[in-house]
């Protein structure tokens, strides 16, 4: 589904991603962990098409198509969704309007008619229930004045509405209280299928108790320096990153 080969990217002055290789197949869950500043958010942004980063080498293909030349919106239309580590506040645009626009723009790109208002409302209600989101929230301005946890829950709510093929959750767990974490994780699990895939970026093993990954990767200094199964996350929780960094630096 997603195939990243020797991806090098950065900003003018500095190289941030220094040769990333990653294969994600339908139905899989990949966890990416790694110390602060190692390049996890940059990798997600580059996959989603952020233009601030210059891709200096390598390739990203999604379902067989090279997507590096595509605009962020075109990638979204193909089914790539990024849940932001720091969701943006947009005063003046209500959550429901935003989701409606977002969903219908994707439908338009696929040659579909806009979703009838009734169906949309019904779908929103269902998903709100799934994530235990309070009424009244739909008419609020997007993320404005939302607490940290509410913002994250809103991201996952949007994901549920857009039903992406590939969801990248960038530290969606940070800022969530224990109950919210369980609700969000259960929601994500319910949305899992053999056709879609998830990349979870997290600092905490705890999330991976709920969303069980097929693979765990450690990103360090712009490279994936170690990959393993869910046991690797436990090991990291116990021992930290030092031992991996040492290993990596020796290479």
């Amino acid at each position, binding site marked *: 589904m997603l195939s990243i080969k020797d991806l090098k990217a950065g900003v003018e002055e500095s190289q941030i991603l220094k040769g990333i290789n990653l294969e994600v197949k339908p139905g899989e869950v990949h966890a990416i962990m790694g110390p602060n500043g190692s390049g996890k958010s940059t990798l997600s942004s580059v996959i989603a098409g952020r233009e601030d980063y210059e891709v200096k080498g390598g390739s990203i293909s999604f379902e067989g198509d090279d997507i590096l030349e595509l605009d962020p919106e075109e990638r979204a239309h193909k089914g790539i969704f990024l849940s932001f580590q720091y969701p943006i506040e947009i005063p003046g645009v209500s959550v429901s309007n935003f989701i409606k626009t*977002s969903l219908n723009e994707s439908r338009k790109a696929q040659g579909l008619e806009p979703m009838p208002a009734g169906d949309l409302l019904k779908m929103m209600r269902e998903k709100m229930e799934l994530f235990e989101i309070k009424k009244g929230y739909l008419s609020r301005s997007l993320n404005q004045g939302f607490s940290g946890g509410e913002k994250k829950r809103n991201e996952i709510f949007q994901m549920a509405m*857009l039903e992406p093929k590939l969801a990248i959750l960038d530290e969606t767990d940070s800022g969530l209280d224990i109950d919210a974490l369980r609700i969000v994780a259960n929601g994500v699990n319910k949305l899992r299928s053999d056709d879609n895939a998830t990349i979870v970026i997290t600092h905490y093993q705890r999330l991976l108790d709920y969303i069980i990954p097929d693979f765990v990767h450690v990103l360090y200094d712009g490279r994936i320096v170690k990959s393993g199964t869910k046991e690797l996350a436990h090991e990291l929780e116990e021992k930290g990153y030092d031992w991996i960094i040492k290993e990596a630096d020796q290479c």
Partner: protein
Amino acid sequence: MDYQRGGPVLKEQLIQVFKDSAKNGLPFKAVREKYIQQFDTDGFPTVKDEEWKYTNLLPLTKKDYAFENTDGIINKEQLEEFILNDTDSYYLVFVNGVLSKELSTITEGAFVVGSLKHNNRQDILEKYWNSCLPQKTDTLVAINNALAQEGAFVYVSKNVVVDKPVQVIYASSNVQQDLFLQTRALIVLEENAQVQITERHQNFDDSFVFTNAVTEIVADANAIVDFYKIQNNTLNCSLIDNTWVKQAKTSNCTIDTFSFGGKFTRNNLNFCLTGEHAESNMNGITLIGKDQLVDHHTFVDHAVPNCNSNELYKGIFDANAKGIFNGKVMVRPDAQKTNAFQANNNLLMTDNASIDTKPQLEIYADDVACSHGCTIGQLDENALFYLRSRGIAKKEAQAMLMYAFANDVLENIKIPELKNKLNRIIAKKLGVQLDIEL
């Protein structure tokens, strides 16, 4: 002749028009004489005048205008696009400055919606005409004072609430030659009276129309006025709008100015607060592009204690558009406990667009709360990426952020159809089809 002052020919022509039409004008001959003399002495302002520093009138005063045209014809269908059709309203329609009796709904009773020239309340006219203006006016106001012959007249007597909005349209059509119009409006609200008014200038012709408008609004104790200026004229039009508001105690007056069209638009908006606990609100959205200029000059005169004034102006400038905002607030020595708030926020969409923004606070009282803030920026790249990553195309995402930027001005509009109409105008102007209900 002094070519530096600009438009010497136009000046002489205007003085001649005054002589020729002295009998036809509004019935204030002595006063009008005074103003034509002032104009004769002062001439047109130039960029050397502090108040006109960034706004050069020369291109406007160099043209060869007609000053009158009675050939204008507008029918109801033509107007439909430019009015609120689903909001039951009173209408005042002027075509080339002449009242259209068919298209207007003249009403005289507990309140008057009518024309300055034809009405049965000369007593009110005598009492209030020119009453909001200062002793020495700006040249353009002087020209209008001397030459205006007709205009909108709204008079609401004590305790009366006008049951529907009044829509005022100044149309121009069938103009053979470029036209220079002096439009005029007098709005008088007695104690406890209320009215909502929308105003639009609309050209239906290919010729150029230059309008020099003066509006006086008198709000007596506890009166409420909501006045919406929709400036979305064609690009072959320019407008100088001079609006003067005088407010008595506990009155509340809001003037919203939506500037999207027209080539050159200058708004001189002046409030004089003469009674305690009066509140003045000025809001504006300016959204302009190629070769357009919009200049907002506001002035609030806090002459007495305990009044509030709020200004919120948002500007979005594309291509080589030029914006000017000059917000002057005067707090006189007696005006303790004044609250004066002013904000002017701007987005520049290109490197060629520009905005000159200047707050001018003159505060002579010590116990006051006055604040002002201006911002100039670009669209937030993070927000843009966020929206695009959710599948919203760049143009639509930009439009959405611009809507969001202007939203706090739109959300206070009290006529729902007007709000929707402005949304549509904005969407059209941005070239997007977004059905955002804000």
